[in-house]
Protein backbone atom coordinates (compact mmCIF):
# COMPACT_ATOMS: atom_id res chain seq x y z
CA UNK A 1 0.00 0.00 0.00
CA UNK A 2 1.69 3.18 -1.16
CA UNK A 3 -0.53 5.75 0.53
CA UNK A 4 1.03 7.63 3.38
CA UNK A 5 -1.36 10.02 5.05
CA UNK A 6 0.52 13.13 3.95
CA UNK A 7 0.46 12.49 0.22
CA UNK A 8 -1.76 14.60 -1.97
CA UNK A 9 -0.54 13.71 -5.48
CA UNK A 10 -2.45 10.84 -7.13
CA UNK A 11 -0.55 7.61 -7.72
CA UNK A 12 -1.88 5.86 -10.84
CA UNK A 13 -0.36 2.51 -9.87
CA UNK A 14 -2.27 2.36 -6.58
CA UNK A 15 -5.78 0.86 -6.48
CA UNK A 16 -8.31 3.44 -7.71
CA UNK A 17 -10.17 3.15 -4.43
CA UNK A 18 -9.18 1.16 -1.35
CA UNK A 19 -11.40 0.76 1.70
CA UNK A 20 -9.56 -0.66 4.71
CA UNK A 21 -11.83 -1.80 7.55
CA UNK A 22 -14.00 1.31 7.20
CA UNK A 23 -16.74 1.96 9.76
CA UNK A 24 -19.28 4.72 9.96
CA UNK A 25 -22.01 5.42 12.48
CA UNK A 26 -25.02 7.70 12.34
CA UNK A 27 -25.58 8.11 16.05
CA UNK A 28 -25.98 4.60 17.43
CA UNK A 29 -26.75 3.13 14.00
CA UNK A 30 -23.77 1.52 12.27
CA UNK A 31 -24.00 2.33 8.58
CA UNK A 32 -20.69 0.63 7.70
CA UNK A 33 -19.04 -2.09 9.78
CA UNK A 34 -15.40 -2.68 8.93
CA UNK A 35 -15.78 -2.69 5.15
CA UNK A 36 -12.71 -3.60 3.11
CA UNK A 37 -12.75 -3.38 -0.68
CA UNK A 38 -10.18 -2.53 -3.35
CA UNK A 39 -11.28 -1.23 -6.74
CA UNK A 40 -8.65 -1.62 -9.47
CA UNK A 41 -8.09 1.12 -12.06
CA UNK A 42 -10.56 0.64 -14.90
CA UNK A 43 -12.68 -1.76 -12.91
CA UNK A 44 -16.49 -1.51 -13.00
CA UNK A 45 -18.05 -2.37 -9.69
CA UNK A 46 -21.77 -2.52 -9.03
CA UNK A 47 -22.92 -2.30 -5.43
CA UNK A 48 -26.34 -3.69 -4.59
CA UNK A 49 -28.28 -4.60 -1.51
CA UNK A 50 -31.49 -3.80 0.34
CA UNK A 51 -32.18 -0.17 1.24
CA UNK A 52 -30.42 0.90 4.40
CA UNK A 53 -27.60 -1.56 3.79
CA UNK A 54 -24.97 1.19 3.64
CA UNK A 55 -24.24 1.12 -0.09
CA UNK A 56 -24.85 4.85 -0.64
CA UNK A 57 -22.87 5.70 2.49
CA UNK A 58 -20.01 3.59 1.15
CA UNK A 59 -19.58 5.60 -2.04
CA UNK A 60 -20.34 8.93 -0.36
CA UNK A 61 -17.31 8.33 1.88
CA UNK A 62 -15.07 8.15 -1.19
CA UNK A 63 -15.31 11.89 -1.91
CA UNK A 64 -15.92 12.84 1.71
CA UNK A 65 -19.58 13.79 1.41
CA UNK A 66 -19.71 11.60 4.51
CA UNK A 67 -16.78 11.33 6.93
CA UNK A 68 -15.95 7.76 7.98
CA UNK A 69 -15.26 7.16 11.66
CA UNK A 70 -12.81 4.24 11.52
CA UNK A 71 -10.40 2.65 9.07
CA UNK A 72 -8.81 4.21 6.01
CA UNK A 73 -9.97 5.12 2.54
CA UNK A 74 -7.37 5.74 -0.16
CA UNK A 75 -8.22 7.19 -3.57
CA UNK A 76 -5.35 6.68 -6.01
CA UNK A 77 -3.07 6.48 -3.00
CA UNK A 78 -4.35 9.71 -1.41
CA UNK A 79 -5.87 9.23 2.01
CA UNK A 80 -9.36 10.66 2.47
CA UNK A 81 -9.29 12.56 5.75
CA UNK A 82 -9.98 15.96 7.27
CA UNK A 83 -7.32 17.78 5.26
CA UNK A 84 -9.29 20.07 2.93
CA UNK A 85 -6.47 20.13 0.34
CA UNK A 86 -6.46 16.38 -0.05
CA UNK A 87 -10.26 16.26 -0.08
CA UNK A 88 -10.38 18.79 -2.92
CA UNK A 89 -7.63 16.96 -4.80
CA UNK A 90 -9.75 13.80 -4.60
CA UNK A 91 -12.98 15.54 -5.56
CA UNK A 92 -11.30 16.92 -8.68
CA UNK A 93 -10.58 13.37 -9.89
CA UNK A 94 -13.79 11.69 -8.73
CA UNK A 95 -17.06 12.49 -10.49
CA UNK A 96 -20.37 11.82 -8.79
CA UNK A 97 -23.90 11.38 -10.12
CA UNK A 98 -26.76 11.57 -7.63
CA UNK A 99 -30.14 9.93 -7.43
CA UNK A 100 -31.85 13.36 -7.46
CA UNK A 101 -29.63 14.85 -10.24
CA UNK A 102 -28.82 17.97 -8.17
CA UNK A 103 -28.40 20.23 -11.20
CA UNK A 104 -28.03 23.91 -10.31
CA UNK A 105 -31.54 25.22 -11.12
CA UNK A 106 -30.50 28.86 -11.63
CA UNK A 107 -27.89 28.01 -14.27
CA UNK A 108 -28.45 26.83 -17.84
CA UNK A 109 -27.42 23.32 -18.84
CA UNK A 110 -24.23 24.69 -20.38
CA UNK A 111 -23.44 26.84 -17.34
CA UNK A 112 -23.95 23.82 -15.11
CA UNK A 113 -21.29 22.04 -17.13
CA UNK A 114 -18.68 24.80 -17.34
CA UNK A 115 -18.81 26.03 -13.73
CA UNK A 116 -16.35 23.55 -12.26
CA UNK A 117 -13.94 23.39 -15.23
CA UNK A 118 -13.64 27.19 -15.08
CA UNK A 119 -13.54 27.63 -11.30
CA UNK A 120 -11.63 24.51 -10.32
CA UNK A 121 -9.45 23.79 -13.36
CA UNK A 122 -9.03 27.46 -14.30
CA UNK A 123 -10.17 26.80 -17.87
CA UNK A 124 -11.06 29.72 -20.16
CA UNK A 125 -14.78 30.07 -20.93
CA UNK A 126 -14.48 29.27 -24.64
CA UNK A 127 -12.47 26.14 -23.94
CA UNK A 128 -14.83 25.04 -21.17
CA UNK A 129 -17.86 25.57 -23.44
CA UNK A 130 -16.29 23.54 -26.21
CA UNK A 131 -15.55 20.74 -23.75
CA UNK A 132 -19.07 20.92 -22.32
CA UNK A 133 -20.68 20.80 -25.77
CA UNK A 134 -18.65 17.72 -26.67
CA UNK A 135 -19.87 15.91 -23.53
CA UNK A 136 -23.45 17.12 -24.01
CA UNK A 137 -23.24 15.67 -27.52
CA UNK A 138 -21.98 12.42 -26.03
CA UNK A 139 -25.00 12.18 -23.73
CA UNK A 140 -27.12 13.16 -26.78
CA UNK A 141 -28.60 16.48 -25.61
CA UNK A 142 -26.45 19.22 -27.20
CA UNK A 143 -29.63 21.01 -28.37
CA UNK A 144 -30.72 21.64 -24.76
CA UNK A 145 -27.55 23.55 -23.80
CA UNK A 146 -29.23 26.93 -23.32
CA UNK A 147 -32.22 25.67 -21.33
CA UNK A 148 -32.64 25.74 -17.60
CA UNK A 149 -32.66 22.31 -15.94
CA UNK A 150 -36.32 22.33 -14.92
CA UNK A 151 -37.35 22.59 -18.58
CA UNK A 152 -35.88 19.11 -19.11
CA UNK A 153 -37.30 15.66 -18.39
CA UNK A 154 -35.82 13.61 -15.55
CA UNK A 155 -33.85 11.41 -17.93
CA UNK A 156 -32.44 14.45 -19.70
CA UNK A 157 -31.52 16.07 -16.38
CA UNK A 158 -29.65 12.98 -15.28
CA UNK A 159 -27.77 12.88 -18.58
CA UNK A 160 -26.80 16.53 -18.05
CA UNK A 161 -25.60 15.62 -14.55
CA UNK A 162 -23.42 12.90 -16.09
CA UNK A 163 -22.04 15.35 -18.66
CA UNK A 164 -21.38 17.88 -15.90
CA UNK A 165 -19.35 15.36 -13.95
CA UNK A 166 -17.46 14.26 -17.08
CA UNK A 167 -16.45 17.86 -17.85
CA UNK A 168 -14.00 17.62 -14.96
CA UNK A 169 -12.40 14.67 -16.82
CA UNK A 170 -12.51 12.46 -13.72
CA UNK A 171 -10.64 9.16 -13.64
CA UNK A 172 -13.25 7.67 -11.32
CA UNK A 173 -17.03 7.97 -11.52
CA UNK A 174 -19.41 7.23 -8.67
CA UNK A 175 -23.11 6.65 -9.40
CA UNK A 176 -25.50 6.77 -6.45
CA UNK A 177 -28.70 5.07 -7.65
CA UNK A 178 -28.70 7.12 -10.87
CA UNK A 179 -32.02 5.75 -12.15
CA UNK A 180 -34.02 5.40 -8.93
CA UNK A 181 -35.78 8.76 -9.28
CA UNK A 182 -36.67 8.26 -12.95
CA UNK A 183 -39.89 7.25 -14.63
CA UNK A 184 -39.54 3.75 -16.14
CA UNK A 185 -39.48 4.97 -19.74
CA UNK A 186 -36.45 7.18 -19.02
CA UNK A 187 -34.31 4.61 -17.27
CA UNK A 188 -32.98 3.09 -20.47
CA UNK A 189 -31.64 6.35 -21.93
CA UNK A 190 -29.60 6.96 -18.77
CA UNK A 191 -28.36 3.37 -18.49
CA UNK A 192 -27.31 3.47 -22.16
CA UNK A 193 -25.17 6.54 -21.49
CA UNK A 194 -23.58 4.93 -18.43
CA UNK A 195 -23.01 1.74 -20.42
CA UNK A 196 -21.19 3.65 -23.16
CA UNK A 197 -19.08 5.31 -20.52
CA UNK A 198 -18.15 1.93 -19.09
CA UNK A 199 -16.68 0.94 -22.47
CA UNK A 200 -14.15 3.78 -22.27
CA UNK A 201 -12.24 2.02 -19.48
CA UNK A 202 -13.11 4.51 -16.75
CA UNK A 203 -13.14 3.28 -13.16
CA UNK A 204 -16.77 3.14 -12.07
CA UNK A 205 -18.61 2.33 -8.88
CA UNK A 206 -22.36 2.21 -9.30
CA UNK A 207 -25.01 1.69 -6.66
CA UNK A 208 -28.11 0.43 -8.41
CA UNK A 209 -31.18 -1.80 -8.23
CA UNK A 210 -31.06 -2.47 -11.99
CA UNK A 211 -29.98 -6.10 -11.89
CA UNK A 212 -29.96 -6.66 -15.66
CA UNK A 213 -27.76 -3.64 -16.08
CA UNK A 214 -25.45 -4.80 -13.27
CA UNK A 215 -25.10 -8.19 -14.94
CA UNK A 216 -24.18 -6.72 -18.34
CA UNK A 217 -21.89 -3.97 -17.13
CA UNK A 218 -20.09 -5.03 -13.97
CA UNK A 219 -16.70 -6.70 -13.69
CA UNK A 220 -17.58 -7.36 -10.09
CA UNK A 221 -20.73 -7.23 -8.08
CA UNK A 222 -20.70 -6.39 -4.40
CA UNK A 223 -23.68 -7.34 -2.25
CA UNK A 224 -24.08 -5.38 0.99
CA UNK A 225 -26.40 -5.89 3.91
CA UNK A 226 -26.48 -4.20 7.34
CA UNK A 227 -23.29 -2.24 6.71
CA UNK A 228 -21.21 -5.25 5.63
CA UNK A 229 -20.06 -6.71 2.34
CA UNK A 230 -21.76 -10.09 2.41
CA UNK A 231 -20.56 -11.43 -0.90
CA UNK A 232 -18.57 -10.12 -3.87
CA UNK A 233 -17.58 -11.62 -7.19
CA UNK A 234 -18.33 -11.74 -10.93
CA UNK A 235 -22.03 -10.99 -11.42
CA UNK A 236 -22.67 -14.17 -13.39
CA UNK A 237 -21.50 -16.27 -10.45
CA UNK A 238 -23.47 -14.24 -7.91
CA UNK A 239 -26.66 -14.59 -9.92
CA UNK A 240 -26.13 -18.27 -10.78
CA UNK A 241 -24.75 -19.55 -7.51
CA UNK A 242 -25.14 -17.15 -4.61
CA UNK A 243 -23.47 -18.54 -1.49
CA UNK A 244 -24.74 -16.29 1.29
CA UNK A 245 -28.33 -16.92 2.37
CA UNK A 246 -28.95 -13.17 2.62
CA UNK A 247 -27.94 -12.71 -1.03
CA UNK A 248 -30.18 -15.64 -2.03
CA UNK A 249 -33.12 -14.00 -0.25
CA UNK A 250 -32.35 -10.66 -1.83
CA UNK A 251 -32.13 -12.09 -5.35
CA UNK A 252 -35.28 -14.11 -4.83
CA UNK A 253 -37.15 -10.94 -3.93
CA UNK A 254 -35.69 -8.79 -6.67
CA UNK A 255 -35.97 -11.37 -9.47
CA UNK A 256 -39.34 -12.81 -8.50
CA UNK A 257 -40.98 -11.51 -11.66
Amino acid at each position, binding site marked *: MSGRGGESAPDPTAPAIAFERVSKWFGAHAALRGVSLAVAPGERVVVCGPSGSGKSTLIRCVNRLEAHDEGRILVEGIEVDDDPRRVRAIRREVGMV*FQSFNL*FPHLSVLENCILAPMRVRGMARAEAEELAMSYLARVRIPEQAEKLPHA*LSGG*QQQRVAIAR*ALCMRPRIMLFDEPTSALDPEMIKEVLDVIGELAETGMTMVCVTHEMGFARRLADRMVFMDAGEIVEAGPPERLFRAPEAPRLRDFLAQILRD
Partner: protein
Amino acid sequence: MAALAGGLAYVAHRFGSVLHYRWDWGSLGGALLHWSVAHHAWRAGLLLEGLEATLRLALWSSVLTFLLGFGFALCRISRSLYWRLLGGLYVGFVRNMPLLVFLFLFYFFLSSQILPLLGLDRLGHGAGPAARFWLGLLFGPPRELSAFVTGVFCLALFEGAYVAEILRAGLQAVPRGQWEAALGLGLGRRETLWRVILPQALRASLPALAGQVILLIKASSVASLISIPELTYMANEVSSSNDHVFETWTAAAALYFVVCFGAASLFARWERARGTALAAGPRA
Protein backbone atom coordinates in the same frame (compact mmCIF):
# COMPACT_ATOMS: atom_id res chain seq x y z
CA MET B 1 -67.47 47.84 1.91
CA ALA B 2 -70.55 49.36 3.52
CA ALA B 3 -68.76 49.58 6.86
CA LEU B 4 -65.77 51.25 5.22
CA ALA B 5 -67.97 53.80 3.43
CA GLY B 6 -69.85 54.44 6.66
CA GLY B 7 -66.63 54.98 8.57
CA LEU B 8 -65.31 57.40 5.98
CA ALA B 9 -68.59 59.30 5.98
CA TYR B 10 -68.40 59.57 9.75
CA VAL B 11 -64.86 60.94 9.66
CA ALA B 12 -65.88 63.47 7.00
CA HIS B 13 -68.85 64.45 9.15
CA ARG B 14 -66.60 65.02 12.18
CA PHE B 15 -64.29 67.19 10.11
CA GLY B 16 -67.13 69.20 8.61
CA SER B 17 -69.49 69.79 11.52
CA VAL B 18 -67.77 68.95 14.78
CA LEU B 19 -64.17 70.07 14.37
CA HIS B 20 -65.11 72.89 11.99
CA TYR B 21 -61.76 72.22 10.34
CA ARG B 22 -61.09 74.43 7.36
CA TRP B 23 -58.97 72.61 4.82
CA ASP B 24 -56.41 74.88 3.23
CA TRP B 25 -54.06 73.01 0.90
CA GLY B 26 -52.64 76.36 -0.21
CA SER B 27 -50.87 76.62 3.11
CA LEU B 28 -48.61 73.75 2.04
CA GLY B 29 -47.32 75.42 -1.10
CA GLY B 30 -44.17 76.84 0.38
CA ALA B 31 -43.34 73.68 2.24
CA LEU B 32 -43.08 71.76 -1.02
CA LEU B 33 -41.64 74.30 -3.48
CA HIS B 34 -41.07 78.00 -3.12
CA TRP B 35 -39.78 80.80 -5.36
CA SER B 36 -36.51 82.10 -4.08
CA VAL B 37 -36.12 85.81 -4.78
CA ALA B 38 -32.43 85.71 -3.96
CA HIS B 39 -31.64 82.84 -6.35
CA HIS B 40 -34.32 83.63 -8.97
CA ALA B 41 -35.27 79.97 -9.05
CA TRP B 42 -37.67 77.42 -7.59
CA ARG B 43 -36.23 75.83 -4.45
CA ALA B 44 -37.31 72.76 -2.58
CA GLY B 45 -39.40 73.53 0.49
CA LEU B 46 -38.86 71.94 3.89
CA LEU B 47 -40.94 68.84 3.12
CA LEU B 48 -39.05 68.06 -0.08
CA GLU B 49 -35.74 68.67 1.68
CA GLY B 50 -36.91 66.23 4.29
CA LEU B 51 -37.84 63.73 1.60
CA GLU B 52 -34.35 64.02 0.14
CA ALA B 53 -32.81 63.29 3.55
CA THR B 54 -35.17 60.34 4.01
CA LEU B 55 -34.09 58.89 0.65
CA ARG B 56 -30.42 59.33 1.57
CA LEU B 57 -30.98 57.71 4.92
CA ALA B 58 -32.97 54.82 3.42
CA LEU B 59 -30.44 54.24 0.64
CA TRP B 60 -27.33 54.03 2.78
CA SER B 61 -28.93 52.14 5.61
CA SER B 62 -30.38 49.62 3.10
CA VAL B 63 -26.92 49.03 1.65
CA LEU B 64 -25.40 48.62 5.10
CA THR B 65 -28.35 46.51 6.28
CA PHE B 66 -27.74 44.00 3.50
CA LEU B 67 -24.02 43.81 4.19
CA LEU B 68 -24.62 43.30 7.90
CA GLY B 69 -27.52 40.95 7.33
CA PHE B 70 -25.50 38.84 4.92
CA GLY B 71 -22.51 38.76 7.25
CA PHE B 72 -24.57 37.70 10.23
CA ALA B 73 -26.56 35.19 8.18
CA LEU B 74 -23.25 33.55 7.31
CA CYS B 75 -22.35 33.56 11.01
CA ARG B 76 -25.63 31.84 11.80
CA ILE B 77 -25.00 28.98 9.35
CA SER B 78 -21.27 28.69 10.08
CA ARG B 79 -19.87 25.33 11.08
CA SER B 80 -17.96 27.03 13.90
CA LEU B 81 -19.75 27.37 17.21
CA TYR B 82 -18.03 30.71 17.87
CA TRP B 83 -19.54 32.39 14.79
CA ARG B 84 -22.93 30.80 15.37
CA LEU B 85 -22.99 32.17 18.92
CA LEU B 86 -21.91 35.61 17.73
CA GLY B 87 -24.68 35.66 15.12
CA GLY B 88 -27.25 34.36 17.59
CA LEU B 89 -26.23 36.95 20.17
CA TYR B 90 -26.58 39.81 17.71
CA VAL B 91 -29.96 38.72 16.41
CA GLY B 92 -31.25 37.95 19.88
CA PHE B 93 -30.03 41.26 21.28
CA VAL B 94 -31.37 43.50 18.54
CA ARG B 95 -34.66 41.81 17.83
CA ASN B 96 -35.83 41.91 21.42
CA MET B 97 -35.57 45.65 21.83
CA PRO B 98 -37.75 48.47 20.46
CA LEU B 99 -36.16 50.48 17.67
CA LEU B 100 -36.56 53.76 19.51
CA VAL B 101 -34.82 52.50 22.64
CA PHE B 102 -32.07 51.02 20.50
CA LEU B 103 -31.69 54.36 18.72
CA PHE B 104 -31.37 56.35 21.95
CA LEU B 105 -28.93 53.88 23.47
CA PHE B 106 -26.93 53.97 20.31
CA TYR B 107 -27.09 57.75 19.99
CA PHE B 108 -26.28 58.76 23.55
CA PHE B 109 -23.69 56.13 24.38
CA LEU B 110 -21.98 55.13 21.18
CA SER B 111 -22.16 58.00 18.78
CA SER B 112 -21.31 60.69 21.31
CA GLN B 113 -18.23 58.70 22.35
CA ILE B 114 -16.98 57.06 19.20
CA LEU B 115 -17.90 59.28 16.26
CA PRO B 116 -15.84 62.33 17.33
CA LEU B 117 -12.77 60.11 17.19
CA LEU B 118 -13.36 59.48 13.50
CA GLY B 119 -13.11 63.18 12.65
CA LEU B 120 -16.19 63.14 10.41
CA ASP B 121 -16.82 66.83 10.92
CA ARG B 122 -13.56 67.64 9.19
CA LEU B 123 -14.49 65.50 6.17
CA GLY B 124 -14.77 67.42 2.93
CA HIS B 125 -12.99 70.49 4.24
CA GLY B 126 -10.31 70.29 1.61
CA ALA B 127 -12.68 69.21 -1.18
CA GLY B 128 -13.35 71.26 -4.29
CA PRO B 129 -16.84 72.53 -5.20
CA ALA B 130 -17.68 69.54 -7.43
CA ALA B 131 -16.66 67.04 -4.77
CA ARG B 132 -18.56 69.04 -2.19
CA PHE B 133 -21.70 68.95 -4.35
CA TRP B 134 -21.53 65.16 -4.67
CA LEU B 135 -20.75 64.66 -1.00
CA GLY B 136 -23.74 66.86 -0.16
CA LEU B 137 -26.02 64.98 -2.55
CA LEU B 138 -24.96 61.58 -1.25
CA PHE B 139 -24.46 62.21 2.44
CA GLY B 140 -26.17 65.54 3.20
CA PRO B 141 -24.65 68.73 4.58
CA PRO B 142 -21.28 68.18 6.37
CA ARG B 143 -22.41 69.74 9.65
CA GLU B 144 -25.20 67.13 9.91
CA LEU B 145 -22.93 64.26 8.90
CA SER B 146 -22.32 62.96 12.39
CA ALA B 147 -26.04 62.60 13.17
CA PHE B 148 -26.61 61.17 9.69
CA VAL B 149 -23.94 58.51 10.16
CA THR B 150 -25.41 57.62 13.55
CA GLY B 151 -28.84 57.26 11.99
CA VAL B 152 -27.56 55.09 9.14
CA PHE B 153 -25.61 52.76 11.44
CA CYS B 154 -28.42 52.52 13.94
CA LEU B 155 -31.08 51.67 11.34
CA ALA B 156 -28.75 49.24 9.59
CA LEU B 157 -27.74 47.47 12.80
CA PHE B 158 -31.38 47.19 13.76
CA GLU B 159 -32.79 46.03 10.42
CA GLY B 160 -29.71 43.90 9.77
CA ALA B 161 -30.87 41.43 12.42
CA TYR B 162 -34.11 40.82 10.52
CA VAL B 163 -32.37 40.57 7.17
CA ALA B 164 -29.89 38.13 8.74
CA GLU B 165 -32.79 35.89 9.74
CA ILE B 166 -34.45 36.17 6.31
CA LEU B 167 -31.22 35.28 4.53
CA ARG B 168 -30.40 32.49 6.98
CA ALA B 169 -33.76 30.90 6.27
CA GLY B 170 -33.18 31.34 2.53
CA LEU B 171 -29.71 29.81 2.68
CA GLN B 172 -30.91 26.87 4.74
CA ALA B 173 -33.86 26.27 2.43
CA VAL B 174 -31.52 25.40 -0.46
CA PRO B 175 -31.45 21.58 -0.62
CA ARG B 176 -28.34 19.86 0.76
CA GLY B 177 -27.88 18.13 -2.58
CA GLN B 178 -26.88 21.49 -4.08
CA TRP B 179 -23.96 21.75 -1.66
CA GLU B 180 -23.04 18.13 -2.29
CA ALA B 181 -23.10 18.49 -6.08
CA ALA B 182 -20.94 21.63 -6.03
CA LEU B 183 -18.46 20.36 -3.43
CA GLY B 184 -18.34 17.01 -5.21
CA LEU B 185 -17.23 18.80 -8.39
CA GLY B 186 -14.26 20.19 -6.45
CA LEU B 187 -15.56 23.71 -5.78
CA GLY B 188 -14.59 25.24 -2.44
CA ARG B 189 -17.12 26.14 0.21
CA ARG B 190 -16.87 29.85 -0.56
CA GLU B 191 -17.35 29.39 -4.31
CA THR B 192 -20.22 27.01 -3.67
CA LEU B 193 -21.90 29.52 -1.41
CA TRP B 194 -21.36 32.41 -3.80
CA ARG B 195 -22.16 30.78 -7.14
CA VAL B 196 -24.60 28.02 -6.27
CA ILE B 197 -26.30 28.54 -2.92
CA LEU B 198 -26.65 32.32 -2.61
CA PRO B 199 -28.37 32.92 -5.97
CA GLN B 200 -31.03 30.36 -5.04
CA ALA B 201 -31.36 31.68 -1.48
CA LEU B 202 -31.78 35.26 -2.73
CA ARG B 203 -34.50 34.29 -5.13
CA ALA B 204 -36.45 32.58 -2.38
CA SER B 205 -35.91 35.49 0.03
CA LEU B 206 -36.82 38.30 -2.35
CA PRO B 207 -40.43 38.88 -1.20
CA ALA B 208 -39.42 38.96 2.47
CA LEU B 209 -36.48 41.25 1.70
CA ALA B 210 -38.78 43.66 -0.15
CA GLY B 211 -41.00 43.84 2.93
CA GLN B 212 -37.98 44.54 5.08
CA VAL B 213 -36.81 47.42 2.86
CA ILE B 214 -40.26 49.01 3.12
CA LEU B 215 -40.17 48.60 6.90
CA LEU B 216 -36.75 50.23 6.91
CA ILE B 217 -37.94 53.25 4.92
CA LYS B 218 -40.77 53.76 7.36
CA ALA B 219 -38.58 53.09 10.40
CA SER B 220 -36.27 55.86 9.23
CA SER B 221 -38.87 58.30 10.57
CA VAL B 222 -37.60 57.69 14.12
CA ALA B 223 -34.35 59.35 13.05
CA SER B 224 -36.25 62.62 13.46
CA LEU B 225 -35.85 62.10 17.22
CA ILE B 226 -32.09 62.47 17.02
CA SER B 227 -32.53 65.66 15.00
CA ILE B 228 -31.84 64.29 11.55
CA PRO B 229 -33.88 66.65 9.35
CA GLU B 230 -35.68 63.93 7.39
CA LEU B 231 -39.29 63.93 6.27
CA THR B 232 -40.96 63.35 9.65
CA TYR B 233 -38.78 65.93 11.35
CA MET B 234 -39.60 68.50 8.67
CA ALA B 235 -43.31 67.70 8.73
CA ASN B 236 -43.25 68.33 12.45
CA GLU B 237 -41.53 71.67 11.87
CA VAL B 238 -43.93 72.69 9.14
CA SER B 239 -47.09 71.69 10.98
CA SER B 240 -46.08 73.60 14.10
CA SER B 241 -45.30 76.74 12.15
CA ASN B 242 -48.29 76.81 9.77
CA ASP B 243 -50.87 75.28 12.14
CA HIS B 244 -52.24 73.11 9.32
CA VAL B 245 -51.64 69.75 10.97
CA PHE B 246 -53.92 67.62 8.78
CA GLU B 247 -52.66 68.95 5.46
CA THR B 248 -49.01 68.71 6.46
CA TRP B 249 -49.18 65.17 7.78
CA THR B 250 -51.35 64.06 4.86
CA ALA B 251 -48.68 65.40 2.53
CA ALA B 252 -45.95 63.61 4.51
CA ALA B 253 -47.95 60.38 4.40
CA ALA B 254 -48.39 60.75 0.63
CA LEU B 255 -44.64 61.25 0.16
CA TYR B 256 -43.83 58.17 2.28
CA PHE B 257 -46.40 56.21 0.32
CA VAL B 258 -44.85 57.18 -3.00
CA VAL B 259 -41.36 56.15 -1.85
CA CYS B 260 -42.46 52.85 -0.33
CA PHE B 261 -44.73 52.00 -3.23
CA GLY B 262 -41.89 52.78 -5.64
CA ALA B 263 -39.54 50.48 -3.72
CA ALA B 264 -42.16 47.72 -3.64
CA SER B 265 -42.73 48.03 -7.39
CA LEU B 266 -39.01 47.80 -8.08
CA PHE B 267 -38.77 44.60 -6.06
CA ALA B 268 -41.89 43.17 -7.68
CA ARG B 269 -40.44 43.87 -11.10
CA TRP B 270 -37.15 42.23 -10.14
CA GLU B 271 -38.98 39.19 -8.85
CA ARG B 272 -41.03 38.92 -12.03
CA ALA B 273 -37.91 39.23 -14.20
CA ARG B 274 -36.26 36.34 -12.35
CA GLY B 275 -39.49 34.38 -12.28
CA THR B 276 -40.03 34.54 -16.04
CA ALA B 277 -36.38 33.70 -16.66
CA LEU B 278 -37.00 30.52 -14.70
CA ALA B 279 -40.23 29.68 -16.48
CA ALA B 280 -38.63 29.93 -19.93
CA GLY B 281 -38.72 26.85 -22.11
CA PRO B 282 -41.43 24.19 -22.32
CA ARG B 283 -41.24 21.09 -20.20
CA ALA B 284 -40.11 18.23 -22.34
